[in-house]
């Protein structure tokens, strides 16, 4: 036993020494290679998410090749195992920059992982393109962050505004109790109350909770016009959506409003009947009719298999690559951090989700947000967009 403990202690000390000996002056690769360090959750509970990003990146390279502005692009991928793996994301960021000589980082599915790497990017002077992490404040934690994905306030505030304008007077809110959930709750309420709505009850549920029936019973008794809900996706959201149907929210005359990640394209077949009439706000659904989306889905299926359905995560990774390629093309192949960041600021991309722009002031994404309704089309459950909010800016940035 003692030996084990001593070994662990030495390993920890060594790790700390490694962290302390971090030198900010590590030079990027100068041999014509453009090294992209990719950090995703590839094992554990969120491996499925990680795979979506990976395949989105692969789909992009399938369509656009592996060189840009004369630089050959090399992808080096690391697994941060999702949230709650301590400072792993930070250590991997460091390793990618120091040892693999990464010019740029693409990654961070979760808010805490992006947060933990923030200070490092400044020390090392490397830009990082956020592939998902959606809490508003992240991009303010480091001037080296550029976000191509979305922010929760973008979806939540849009939904709040829509609800207030469409005859919903009273709402009960139910969000998972962690940073993105608080973000979703805050911004939905702000927009909904500003539009004249009233919040009649709110609850924050444990992040991993799989049993929602008692919470929903409480909602049914409060008799609101609608329930606004956010939870972390995957099995938790599927369980929530099933429970909402089981408790018969619709039968009690209560509309269900959710952010789009709760009903993402991959979960729809599992949610099934539970999707009927559910209103959601999101920046992507596979039903978007555009040439770019068709090209993307076709390339994605070639990479991931004919049965695979890309979700918003795959699109975000695809766009992260697009942002990088476009920026490097703009700098003529130069990849110094200042030049790259400047090139990314203000860039407009034709994404599968529609036109998106990187706001030059905030380095955050500006995009259309769709209001969708769950319905069965040609035997498949889908979220069908029926209204679009154009060029939505992250409200978390404008309020101050």
């Amino acid at each position, binding site marked *: 036993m003692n030996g084990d403990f001593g070994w662990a202690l030495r390993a920890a000390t060594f790790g700390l020494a490694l962290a302390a000996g971090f030198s900010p002056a590590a030079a990027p690769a100068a041999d014509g290679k453009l090294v992209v360090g990719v950090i995703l959750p590839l094992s554990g509970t969120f491996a499925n998410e990680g795979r979506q990003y990976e395949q989105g990146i692969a789909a992009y390279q399938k369509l656009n090749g592996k060189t840009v502005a004369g630089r050959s692009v090399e992808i080096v991928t690391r697994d941060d195992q999702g949230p709650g793996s301590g400072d792993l994301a930070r250590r991997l960021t460091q390793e990618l920059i120091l040892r693999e000589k990464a010019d740029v980082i693409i990654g961070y599915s979760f808010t805490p992982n992006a947060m933990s790497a923030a200070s490092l990017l400044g020390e090392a002077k490397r830009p990082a393109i956020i592939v998902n992490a959606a809490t508003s404040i992240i991009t303010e934690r480091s001037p080296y962050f550029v976000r191509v994905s979305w922010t929760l306030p973008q979806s939540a505030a849009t939904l709040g505004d829509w609800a207030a304008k469409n005859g919903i007077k009273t709402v009960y809110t139910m969000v998972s109790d962690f940073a993105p959930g608080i973000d979703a709750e805050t911004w939905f309420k702000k927009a909904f109350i500003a539009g004249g709505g009233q919040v009649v009850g709110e609850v924050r549920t444990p992040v991993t909770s799989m*049993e929602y029936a008692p919470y929903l019973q409480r909602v049914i008794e409060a008799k609101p016009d609608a329930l606004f809900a956010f939870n972390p996706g995957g*099995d938790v959201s599927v369980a929530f959506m099933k429970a909402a149907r089981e408790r018969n929210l619709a039968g009690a005359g209560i509309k269900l409003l959710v952010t789009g990640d709760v009903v993402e394209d991959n979960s729809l077949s599992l949610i*099934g009947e539970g999707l009927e009439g559910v209103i959601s706000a999101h920046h992507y659904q596979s039903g978007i009719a555009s040439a770019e989306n068709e090209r993307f889905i076709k390339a994605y299926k070639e990479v991931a298999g004919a049965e695979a359905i890309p979700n918003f995560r795959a699109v975000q990774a695809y766009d992260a690559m697009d942002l990088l390629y476009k920026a490097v093309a703009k700098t003529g192949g130069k990849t110094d951090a200042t030049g790259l960041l400047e090139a990314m600021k203000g860039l407009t991309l034709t994404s599968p989700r529609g036109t998106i722009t990187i706001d030059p002031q905030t380095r955050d994404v500006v995009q259309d947000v769709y209001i969708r309704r769950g319905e069965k089309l040609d035997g498949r459950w889908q979220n069908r967009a029926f209204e679009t909010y154009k060029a939505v800016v992250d409200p978390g940035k404008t309020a101050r």
Partner: protein
Amino acid sequence: MSSLVAVLVDGVAYGMLLFLSAVGLSVTLGLMRFINLAHGAFAMVGAYLAVVVVGAGLPFLLALPLVFVVVGIFGIAIERTAIRYLYRRSALEQVLFSIGLAFALGALANLIFGPQQQGILTPAWLTGRVALLGLEITSYRLFLIAMGAATAIALIYLFEHTLFGARIRAAVDNRRAAEGIGIQVERLFALTFGLGAALAGLGGALSVEMLGLDPAFALKYLTMLLMVVAIGGAGSIEGSLLAALGLGTVDALFKYLLPEAGGFVIFGLLVAVLLVKPAGLKGRVA
């Protein structure tokens, strides 16, 4: 008032699901003194098997006994090839081996099925709502309650009123004496371990509808299962039943009455029970 009853019924159903998934662990832990952290992995094997056979067209109700038998045989195979060498080893070695097995089975599931969520097609009569005593209960939850009750009765009968049960108790209490009167302890232990695995598989198959299924399943719900066994007392069927129903109803009740903190009450319950009764509610103090 009626909604409080509805919440309690939901909680009982959830508790029954916990009981079905945990009772096999109570058997291996309490009766065989083997710390099997791969129990959740056996549940996962049962869940994947159910998804596959139901997907291939086998009716859900027939899939359940099939899963029970196949995972039971799988458990016996694991017991004969590996576990039996660990009975006399230290608790730490048992923990390390079984958690390693759980990781390996999880990785195997990831290789075969990929990391995505799996669903199971439950028959129409299990997805509707039933009006009962002025309440609307979903038929799947009623089904869980019935399954849990039937399993509890069957197990209590097996362990308390059959020769098999008497032999097991004898073998656990005094192995040498049991062997001396001609009980084949080796075979008995293999069968008991298989029974524990079979029960896990059944619990897993029944969990898919409510908890979903992915390769992380093997470890995700282990904490809850261990809580059931710790509160109930290892080796006691009644204990597991009481603990699971207690956890299910307390969880539901507090989520309903005190939504802002209700999700954490069960952990307080665990601490409280173990402070008063360190061996669990029905634990046999060895």
